[in-house]
């Protein structure tokens, strides 16, 4: 039976596609961010999305999210790792500061979560706590897994990422169970714009994505810290020679990636049922977009993400059982085209 596409359905699918595309754009941006600064192809980005959604769902059920506990655990491990590796970290001043950042911050979030969880204070409290708990996983993961491998090849880093992905999915199952969750929408309003009916939730997603893109653009283009991160990506030794602490560049990149991942999770949780392993497929769609942008271009990656969202929406209308296949097939012509016309750019001498 042929499905008939009329203008109402087109508008509905387009809205759906653009909204999902905006979330993929956030993921693509994080992947590009992490890759350009650390050369890590960050497969577990999707897990941050699932953790974000499920952490918020835990708050809604009045449960202390295990994510906050994990953040404390990883913080302790990262600090111990520092103490073992680096004698300078054992100096009292450094130790106090290290403990405050690695353990103090996640403990504070855990304490706040324990207070907030049973009281149902609503999204204004629960969303920031969710974002904080997940964002704190980023720097600890970087320090534990990727910093010791900082000089390793992209392939080794990729394999490490696969390991982190499997570990986080396993922990996700342990923490949240096999059941899927959906959270209350941030907005239940609907607006009639011409012939289209736009939901408040879509506007939230688009608004947050747009705001984040502008914030990232301003940060990288107009602040010294942003430029220092960019410089670390362009030339690591050069960055060290001007005194940029490149190890903290990696930590900042991972914190931002975890934060953006959690934010994506919070945004999709009201529209999709999220399971402990949902993140992987969502992350891969962001990855398709990032690849179209060559893993280095923020604007291309973001634009490609919207395209991925639209293709997915229309594919699910015409051939819903093949929608994932169709989305991932986009990557083939892109890779062919890239491999044919790749220009080898010599950066130095």
């Amino acid at each position, binding site marked *: 039976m042929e499905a008939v596409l009329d203008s109402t359905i087109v508008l509905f699918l387009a809205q759906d596609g653009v909204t999902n595309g905006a979330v993929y754009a956030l993921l693509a941006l994080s992947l590009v961010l992490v890759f350009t600064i650390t050369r890590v192809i960050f497969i577990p980005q999707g897990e941050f999305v699932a953790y974000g959604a499920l952490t918020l769902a835990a708050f809604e059920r009045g449960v202390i999210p295990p994510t906050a506990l994990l953040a404390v655990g990883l913080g302790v491990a990262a600090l111990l790792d520092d103490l073992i590796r680096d004698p300078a970290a054992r100096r009292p001043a450094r130790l106090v500061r290290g403990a405050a950042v690695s353990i103090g911050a996640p403990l504070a979030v855990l304490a706040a979560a324990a207070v907030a969880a049973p009281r149902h204070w609503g999204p204004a409290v629960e969303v920031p706590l969710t974002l904080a708990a997940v964002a704190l996983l980023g720097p600890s993961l970087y320090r534990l897994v990727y910093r010791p491998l900082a000089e390793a090849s992209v392939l080794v880093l990729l394999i490490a990422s696969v390991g982190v992905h499997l570990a986080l999915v396993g922990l996700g199952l342990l923490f949240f169970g096999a059941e899927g969750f959906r959270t209350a929408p941030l907005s239940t309003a609907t607006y009639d714009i011409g012939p289209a009916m736009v939901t408040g939730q879509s506007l939230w997603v688009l608004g947050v994505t747009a705001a984040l893109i502008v914030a990232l653009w301003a940060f990288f283009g107009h602040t*010294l810290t942003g430029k220092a991160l960019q*410089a670390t990506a*362009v030339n690591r*030794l*050069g960055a060290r*020679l*001007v005194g940029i602490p490149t190890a903290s560049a990696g930590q900042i990149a991972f914190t931002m990636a975890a934060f953006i991942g959690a934010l994506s999770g919070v945004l999709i949780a009201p529209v999709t049922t999220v399971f402990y392993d949902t993140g992987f497929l969502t992350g891969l769609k962001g990855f398709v977009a990032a690849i179209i942008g060559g893993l280095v271009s923020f604007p291309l990656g973001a634009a490609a993400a919207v395209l991925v969202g639209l293709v997915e929406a229309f594919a699910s209308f015409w051939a819903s059982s093949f929608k994932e296949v169709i989305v991932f097939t986009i990557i083939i012509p892109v890779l062919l085209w890239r491999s044919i016309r790749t220009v080898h750019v010599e950066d*130095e001498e």
Partner: protein
Amino acid sequence: MSGPLFELDRVSVSYGRIEAVRQVSLSIQPGQIVTVVGANGAGKTTLLNAAMGILPSTGSIRFQGRAVNSLSIEERVTAGIALVAEKRELFATMAVEDNLRLGAYTRPRGERTADALEEVYTLFPRLKERRKQAAGTMSGGERQMLAMGRALMAKPRVLMLDEPSLGLAPRIVKEILELVSDLRRTGVGILLVEQNARAALRIADYGYVMETGTVTLEGPATTLAADPRVIESYLGLSGQAA
């Protein structure tokens, strides 16, 4: 000033079992240009990388009387030591002015970068003309100027230059070395590593000759330039072209 500004004392660097630098000692006073000359592979670059903390070394490295051996690269930059590496290590895709601004990364945040930037532009007017251009699109000489300018933005007390003449046309080499010679007036101590011994000894106050990882000769630059052994190996027609 009591004691030297920057001092290497019996510094050795090994790559696995191979000792690339053996027991090298040298010292620099403020406002002095000290050069290390020697053939390709003599260990000159290795020595500078060890002094900067890029490579681990044994022996002692002192800056203003304080041992800096245990400091990281970033901490040495903050202390006032800068290296212009042989490969320049610029941020190729970023604008010239961004490269310079990042050079001042270790300076206190409140300080006005604009003044330091003006000083560098006065030294290298060519950089001002190209300040919006991507660093990677400039000529070899301009890139060397940018690398030096970027290092000066950190207001170093010791500036180490690794082969600033490498790959440049003789006219540009002359221009760059004149600029290095002028920097002396700012009181910065300069450690200049060069294969182009003739040019380096012409502007330097004191020189060391390195061969296969050790210092074989040292003395005031004019004495070295007149030494028959130096003339034969490094300045003669059979040696490096000037």
